[in-house]
């Protein structure tokens, strides 16, 4: 009784029907997740549904969606369960079929009954007068890399030619690789973390914020020395952006001059930092850096905060920064406007005061003509500490497994799709040879034709 139940359960998990059902349900579930907004917050989901129905129905729909985790499909219990079933199905299938396949490699080859051969889709008959025909066919097959077996049966001699039979194992390699990838993903979820950090230029942080909004201590401090974004000429499309980082552990710098860029991450102590985004964040600490050239040509460096008065060296003029634009542009009518919040063309509005007389002037970082003021040349170098660099932070011990699994999967797929086993059978009765092949493919048929041609050519 128990055995029967066991067998039923086993057969259920080993069945291709289950595999097909899982293919369909996983795909459907995954597809739902691409349509319904994946958000823990109710607002985006309700907003999405209110496009199709009344607000009150949208609220009710949200409740149903929340019940089945449809707003968090890929981490829901049922989706995880489906993936688990998929893994179980793969394992049971392999345990169910692999031993039979392995046994078939070891078993001594058997002659096939003629009734089986006659059902094969390819059957070609040739009449040939040649005493050494058996040897000849064997040789032809062996030259093409086949291993051959000859049997003497009632119908005459039966030759079996096999090639690439062991490639049937590659399917298991592919299936194994999926399990390795799933295991890698699981390890990553349990033993790794993902987070992000926004570091304002000139400051440092020793924790990242996880996707759920929790602080993850890193165990060291990462400082952003400088951040720069390069833009394509006359456009707001970024060309490259990079952060210059430094790692500080127990108050001492341990790694310096680290440069990270998009597609060029950096790893320290198993934690990898990726350049993900950047932004403009005016803070009180932000410093405007100027260089003033006095009449003798001497350079004076001036660092000031927003709205902070500073003296122009060698004169009685006081000045202060009263406005700032990260990307000042000039429109068609010659008016100034702010193009973007990215630091494309930073500019400052400086107010000068000379003996009670106030004047204002925009100084643009990239336009040297704007540096000329009535009181001398004042170059605007940069706004330091106003940009933040957005880093993704990750530790994932599962990644080596993911890569191994991916390589094995590609290997397995190429073997099982391009090196499929080829079997030929030939029955020799007196001067007649009949070739059989269990699969009907263009290539297979041509190979037989080629052999027949060679046999005939030999005869002539």
């Amino acid at each position, binding site marked *: 009784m128990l055995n029967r139940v066991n067998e039923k359960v086993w057969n259920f998990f080993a069945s291709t029907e289950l595999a097909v059902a899982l293919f369909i349900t996983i795909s459907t579930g995954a597809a739902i997740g691409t349509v319904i907004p994946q958000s823990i917050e109710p607002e985006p989901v309700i907003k999405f549904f209110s496009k199709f129905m009344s607000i009150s129905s949208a609220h009710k729909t949200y409740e149903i969606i929340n019940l089945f985790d449809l707003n968090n499909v890929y981490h829901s219990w049922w989706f995880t369960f489906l993936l688990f079933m998929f893994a179980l199905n793969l394992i049971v299938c392999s345990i169910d079929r692999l031993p039979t396949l392995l046994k078939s490699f070891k078993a001594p080859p058997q002659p096939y009954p003629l009734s089986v051969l006659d059902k094969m889709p390819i059957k070609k008959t040739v009449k040939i007068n040649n005493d050494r025909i058996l040897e000849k066919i064997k040789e032809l097959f062996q030259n093409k890399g086949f291993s051959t077996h000859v049997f003497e049966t009632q119908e005459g001699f039966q030759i079996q030619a096999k090639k690439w039979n062991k490639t049937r194992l590659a399917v298991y390699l592919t299936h194994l690789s999926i399990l390795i990838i799933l295991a890698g993903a699981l390890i990553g979820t349990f033993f790794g973390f993902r987070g992000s950090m926004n570091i304002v230029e000139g400051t440092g942080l020793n924790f990242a914020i996880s996707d759920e909004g929790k602080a993850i201590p890193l165990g060291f401090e990462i400082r952003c020395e400088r951040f720069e974004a390069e833009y394509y000429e006359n456009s707001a499309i*970024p060309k490259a952006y990079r952060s210059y980082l430094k790692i500080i552990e127990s108050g001492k710098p341990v790694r310096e001059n680290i440069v990270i860029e998009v597609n060029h991450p950096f790893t320290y102590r198993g934690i990898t930092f990726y350049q993900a985004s950047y932004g403009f964040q005016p803070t009180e600490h932000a410093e405007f850096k100027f260089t003033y050239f006095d009449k003798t040509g001497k350079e004076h460096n001036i660092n000031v905060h927003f709205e902070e008065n500073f003296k122009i060296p060698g004169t009685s003029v006081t000045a202060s920064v009263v406005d700032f634009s990260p990307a000042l542009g000039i429109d068609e009518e010659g008016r100034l406007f702010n193009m973007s919040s990215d630091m494309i063309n930073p500019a400052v509005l400086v107010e000068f005061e000379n003996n009670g007389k106030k004047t204002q002037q925009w100084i643009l970082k990239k336009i040297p003509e704007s540096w000329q003021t009535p009181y001398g040349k004042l170059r605007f170098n940069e706004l330091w500490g106003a940009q933040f660099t957005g880093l993704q932070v990750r530790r994932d011990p599962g990644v080596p497994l993911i890569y191994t699994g991916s390589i094995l999967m590609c290997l397995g797929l190429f073997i099982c799709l391009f090196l499929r086993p080829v079997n030929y059978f030939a029955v020799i009765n007196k001067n007649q040879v009949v070739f059989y092949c269990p699969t009907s493919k263009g290539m297979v048929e041509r190979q037989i034709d080629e052999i027949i041609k060679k046999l005939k050519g030999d005869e002539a």
Partner: protein
Amino acid sequence: MSYQIISIAGILYILVMPVYIVYILTKNKKIGFAATGILSTGALIHIYGFIQRFKEMYAINHSVMRSIPITNLYESLVFFVLCIVSGYLFIEWKYKNKSFGVFVSVIAGITIGLTDVLGITKEVQPLVPALKSNWLLAHVTLSFIAYAAFGISFITALLHVIVETESKKSFKYIFSTSILGFMVFMFISLIFDAFSASNPKSIKIFHSTLGNSSIIISIFCWIALITIIFLFWRFGDHMKKIVQSLKITSGFLEDMTYKGIAFGFPIFTIGGLVFGAIWADQAWGRYWGWDPKETWSLITWFVYAFYLHAKFIRGWKGTKTSMIAVIGFLITIFTYLGVNLFLSGLHSYGSM
């Protein structure tokens, strides 16, 4: 300019279609030769345009690897067409069979034509930092080679279903004619969408037809859709006769479908999924993030995996598996274009 050269190739692809039809009807060897000649000329002009595009990009990026033109929707469509035409020419040469050239030239011509009609931007755009990666290059190139292989298998699978149908009441007949009808409707609708959109960047598919804000037009379009499908259903048997007169054996079609998928599937796995994951890992620190594009490519992968399992384990033969191949390519198109048009995500660089 490169896009003008590519448009000339597109015109040749459309012009070659009637030549293939005449060849099929007359079986005249000279006409067949002319058809292959025109298609090959189109492909050569296309390659020339592709090289010109490369030069235009090189002038901006000054890097060989960053100038291969497959980085936006227009360039990827152009590359896809190049792959499908070269793939077909290879099959024509290898199997000495010109039977489905008509369909390849239709797909190639329409795709290039659509890039004009839809006003997809053809400007040479500088690359944003995330796109500067060799993994991305391998990912995109291999993905489109796989899509082209799936495209060819779609054509042969659909022909296979059409050839094998006996009665108008059979499911496969209804299946193949509805899909053809729907695709024709979608194509017409796209043109209306393109003309009614105020800005080429804001084209929303079916927006001017099925999803029109005026209920009357919307209902009319639904009726039109059903009518077109009905017409295909009603007169589809003529198509069957034409296809049968092509003297393509259903075995050849089934074999080509299988070969297209057996070739495309591992390429899609390595290029589309694995290299894509490696790129995402390098750029954002995550190899898989259930982004809509990623999710839909997994679904595509599942459908073709299902096709191969049905073929090998279940021993399914004939039209059943071909229908999976047809559905597979429809999902592939959705993964390629639909995700960009309907859903938002990281692959939005591919948007119009």
